[in-house]
């Protein structure tokens, strides 16, 4: 498995319009220009419906812009085939969702193994690495637990371990603490900061919560599909 590589992210005049030309047309992003350096920890803040998740989906190649360009290390990702985008996601991006999105029929370890299985990592190697990752996120001994047997905080820890499975250079977290209490929120943020620092990965974190956003080193604010503030901490 390759070592993590955090790409330079660039969004050039990116727009995203849903159902264009229809009565219910939604212009989620309206010309976003943005550059995120490798290893940065940036928060994306803004009111509901301002385009935060849409922007995250575009950066993570889950969606494609209506116009404009998304670049990784200067390479445009437009026009790539689904298979190629899936490969880039598999090798380069770790997703952490608000609702954890663990597969209910799989155990914690099997959930963590998923990205490695898709990458073709041999069974023994991926089992060992999944156990190591679960241990790293504080879930040693819970490998065989199913999601419904875990608390919300534990589920999100499994999700973090899964996101780290293929050593991605880019971590995208969409409201990762949105459904957690204060103690678990603190635990997850500390974990994310640690894994980012240990691996030199870029962390882009969407949040509503100002106290969560304060943990980032750069604060991006989106309003009505545009970046209205971009503040770097000294």
């Amino acid at each position: 498995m390759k070592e993590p590589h955090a790409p330079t992210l660039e969004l050039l005049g990116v727009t995203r319009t849903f159902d264009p030309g229809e009565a219910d047309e939604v212009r989620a992003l309206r010309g976003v220009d943005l550059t995120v350096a490798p290893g940065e920890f940036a928060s994306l803040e803004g009111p509901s419906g301002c385009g935060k998740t849409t922007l995250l989906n575009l950066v993570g190649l889950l969606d494609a812009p209506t116009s404009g360009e998304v670049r990784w290390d200067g390479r445009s990702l437009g026009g790539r085939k689904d298979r190629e985008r899936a490969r880039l996601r598999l090798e380069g991006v770790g997703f952490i969702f608000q609702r954890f999105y663990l597969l209910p029929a799989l155990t914690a370890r099997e959930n963590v193994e998923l990205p490695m299985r898709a990458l073709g990592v041999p069974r023994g190697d991926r089992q060992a690495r999944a156990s190591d990752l679960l241990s790293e996120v504080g879930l040693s001994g819970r490998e065989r637990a199913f999601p419904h047997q875990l608390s919300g905080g534990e589920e999100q820890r499994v999700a973090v371990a899964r996101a780290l499975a293929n050593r991605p250079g880019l971590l995208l977290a969409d409201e990762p603490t949105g459904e957690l209490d204060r103690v678990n929120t603190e635990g997850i943020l500390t974990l994310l900061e640690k894994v980012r620092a240990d691996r030199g990965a870029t962390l882009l974190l969407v949040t509503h919560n100002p106290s969560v956003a304060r943990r980032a080193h750069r604060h991006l604010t989106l309003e009505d599909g545009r970046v209205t503030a971009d503040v770097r901490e000294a």
Partner: protein
Amino acid sequence: MIRFGRGHRLRHARLQVILAVAAIATAVALPVVLVSVGGGVSAHELAMLQNAGYQIVVSAAGLHGIAHAHPLTEQILSLPSVAAASPVLSIAIDSFPAGPGATPVLAEGVIPVGFGPTLGPEESGLFPLPLPLGDPTDAVHFDNGSYRGPATYDVLVSSPFAEATRVTTGGHLLLGLTNEVSGAISYNVTGTFGVPPTVLGPVGAFAVLVPLSDLQVMTGFANAPHVPVPDAADTVEVAVVPSATSNPEVISSLRDRVQSLVPYYGVSSLSQEATQLQSATAVLTGFYLALSSVGLSVGLVFLTLVLLRRVESERRSIGIRRAIGEPGGSIAAAVVVDGVVIASLGAVVGIAAGYLVVEGLATWAHSTVQEAARLAEFVPLTLTELAGGVVGLSLVAGALAARSALRIDLAEALR
């Protein structure tokens, strides 16, 4: 692959899979029963044809349609390569084994000397040969189309009939055309004969064998002196000499010559009949499969719906897998494999169910159905083809569901 966790939704999914397996199993069981029983009966009939001691048969339309059976037999016997010819007349008559109560039996009138050589290897072991039925040539009371009598009134009875009615060799048996004992004639029971397995069941096993002219006399015509009776028979079975039995050209040539003797009767060789039977079997099998395809179609439509429903209910899981980077091909393959696994399970359960149904019929059904079920043949190749066809069609169902899985909008699925 199919994998169930816990919770109501997953239990619901399990029920759907079980129902899909049951639908396909039901659809598979039907052709298994039809084809195995139909094929078994046909194979049995074919084996009987192939094991018959005669190779050519003359038959005529209508009840006892062959006239002049004795002289026709003589004519046929004079042809080259003919070893024996046996006219057979079959009539349902009444017997009175114990007092005035009538017991129906199937009476067969034969010329004793001709009957033996037209029996197959299996059948000939069932009869006492030469047949102890008086004049071997049946000429004592038949000459040039006139009955001269007196008849010997000898009869052979089938062993099931003898056992059921306690008729013994050396005893007497009253036989008549009607159920009035007063019109019956007393016959000497000169022996018994065995009955080969038959799909007709025990009723068909109640039979007696008498000289052909005796049975013709019993029709009543011969009771009037000097009145010619129709020298009737149903068939004339012709056996060829041993050197010609496996020579289709000789048999075909002989068939043509017999046909030229009786252009107004049907003359066919057993190989022709076997071919016709095989063709009829193939048509029937096709018909069974066509009939079964309706059930199979319903089963596969159900499978498609179940797979589509699973894709819909797994929408988020599929979205998560794809978001992680799992290739679309891998997800599509998993959906197709699900379909194949369900269809394969259905096929296996269906074949097993079909087998059990046939076994059940062979054990608990009655008469003809039971006999037919006992003859059922489970041909591994046919069953494999059937299962393969089902699995092949399940690929179509899987492909449709996989297409649906790949069309899921990721951003929407993860919302």
